[in-house]
């Protein structure tokens, strides 16, 4: 459903992405991994339209979206979260999510119904008892859940999760993994996620794409990727790849 062909993005002299091909199929959970600075978030920014690529084309449901504005892509069904959480400050959780519902892809509804829908989504993501708090009053785990809740308000076809597991403790990671599966089950959303936490990626993804220095290194099942010498070399250095 989402396909990138030869995506290239340069920042001045630095090539952040070079000829990256990828594809995400409906109902998949696909992981995107790579060492720091390998271009993962840049790829997400290109997909959601925050950056325009310098080369290559993007297709969503077989339609070319390379030159569409971000809000149009969101309207087509591409939702995302941000690595560094970016809630709408000054608005409580209901208002944060209700704003998303009001502009979301489901049929037009009034403010009251939007708030009800927002509460449903908040309880789905486990935030219903904090619904009237401000984002600044939440702990990190809950802020990450809020990012997901706000993205779900759009009712996306595909959800781009940018490191929602980072900084969480093992218990929190387990419940976040569980949430990831529940999203796909309840909303039928396809998931494309950037992740460093190996436990999360190994347990959730059916396929993993590996980036290194802006180049696609390999892709395959979690096991294949974990045992690929090139991947080990990229993460730990060439010496470890041999043993």
């Amino acid at each position, binding site marked *: 459903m989402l396909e990138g062909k030869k995506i290239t993005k340069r920042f001045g002299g630095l090539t952040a992405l070079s000829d990256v091909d990828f594809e995400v199929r409906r109902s998949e959970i696909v992981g995107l991994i790579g060492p720091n600075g390998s271009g993962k978030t840049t790829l997400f920014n290109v997909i*959601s*339209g*925050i950056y325009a690529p310098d080369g290559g084309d993007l297709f969503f449901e077989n339609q070319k979206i390379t030159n569409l*504005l*971000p*809000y149009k892509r*969101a*309207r087509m069904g591409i*939702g*995302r979260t*941000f690595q560094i959480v*970016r809630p*709408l*400050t*000054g*608005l*409580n959780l209901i*208002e944060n999510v*209700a*704003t*998303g519902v*009001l*502009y*979301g*892809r489901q049929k037009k509804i009034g*403010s009251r119904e939007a708030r009800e829908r927002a509460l449903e989504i908040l309880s789905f993501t486990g935030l219903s008892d904090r619904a009237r708090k*401000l984002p600044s009053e939440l702990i990190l785990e809950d802020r990450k859940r809020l990012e997901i809740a*706000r*993205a779900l*308000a*759009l009712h996306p076809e595909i959800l781009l999760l940018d490191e929602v597991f980072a900084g969480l403790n093992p218990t929190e990671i387990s419940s976040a993994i569980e949430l990831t599966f529940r999203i796909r089950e309840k909303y039928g959303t396809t998931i494309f996620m950037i992740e460093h936490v190996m436990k999360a990626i190994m347990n959730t993804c059916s396929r993993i794409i590996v980036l290194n220095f802006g180049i696609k290194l390999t892709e395959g099942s979690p096991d294949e990727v974990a045992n690929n010498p090139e991947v080990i070399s990229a993460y730990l250095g060439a010496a470890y790849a041999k043993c």
Partner: protein
Amino acid sequence: MINKLYPAAMAILAVLLAAFPCIGPEVYYLSFLFSIFMYVILASSWNFIGGYAGYISFGHAAFFGIGAFATAKMATMLELPPLLTMLAAIPAGGIAALVALIVGYPCLKIRGPYFSVVTLCFAFVVDLAVKNIEFLGGAEGLWIKFMDIPEKTSRTIMYELMFLLMVITLAASWFLGRSRFGAGLTAIRSDEEVAETMAIPTAKLKIQAFVLSAFFPGVAGGLFAYYLGYIHTDAVFNINISILIVLMAMFGGGGTWLGPIIGAVILTVVNEGLSTFAQAEIARIIYGALFIVVTIFMPNGIIDFFRKKDGMT
């Protein structure tokens, strides 16, 4: 309880204000309330773009002035009878809105302080243009024919018209605050990039808010031109008006319905009080000190300060 009383109290207040001229007050009070209404309109409509969307426009007096000059020009060119002149304020508001559309399209692509600087420059450019173009009145200004009726009657008519415009502006502001449109603007203020990823068409909403926020000051400017009878660029394009509008809205609390109203009322009253009871130099010092105190202790405006005190967030 409070929620039910609130609209009722507002309605009673509105009726009382509308009926105020019936008790035959002195012209001074009518004029005083007239200027309060005018500033409430200016601050509340500035709030659409500056408060909700967070795009601080420092050139809003330009729209006020455009409305005033457009009205005066229409009145003199078409030799309109006085009553029609007042109606000319409405298309004048439309002209202000049209200018906002043209100016807003490039300007609203610029964010933060840069937007403020550009709008400030825009106000200067309009001022200079009007001053130097003979067709628009030039440096001499424009005269409008007065109605051939006693001063008190004409003041009463102006009072009621400005009051009506204020009610309409505040109604628009009220609905905006509770609408999908308002929610979208608030999201833009908070984080424009995130708003885009929530499928909010940010460019479109900003321009709509900017146009709307120019229309009401335009109409108010038209009424003001008629009220003065003679307009000159210094009277309507004054940079102090632009700054005052921003201060009033921020002082009361930007992005809320009540904030700009409170800010406009308090600052107009304080201004008037100081100019009556204090020397000009001392008045300025007191005025400045007031702002420093409010900025330090109530950075988000008076409304926010009292809400926090009540434990409501």
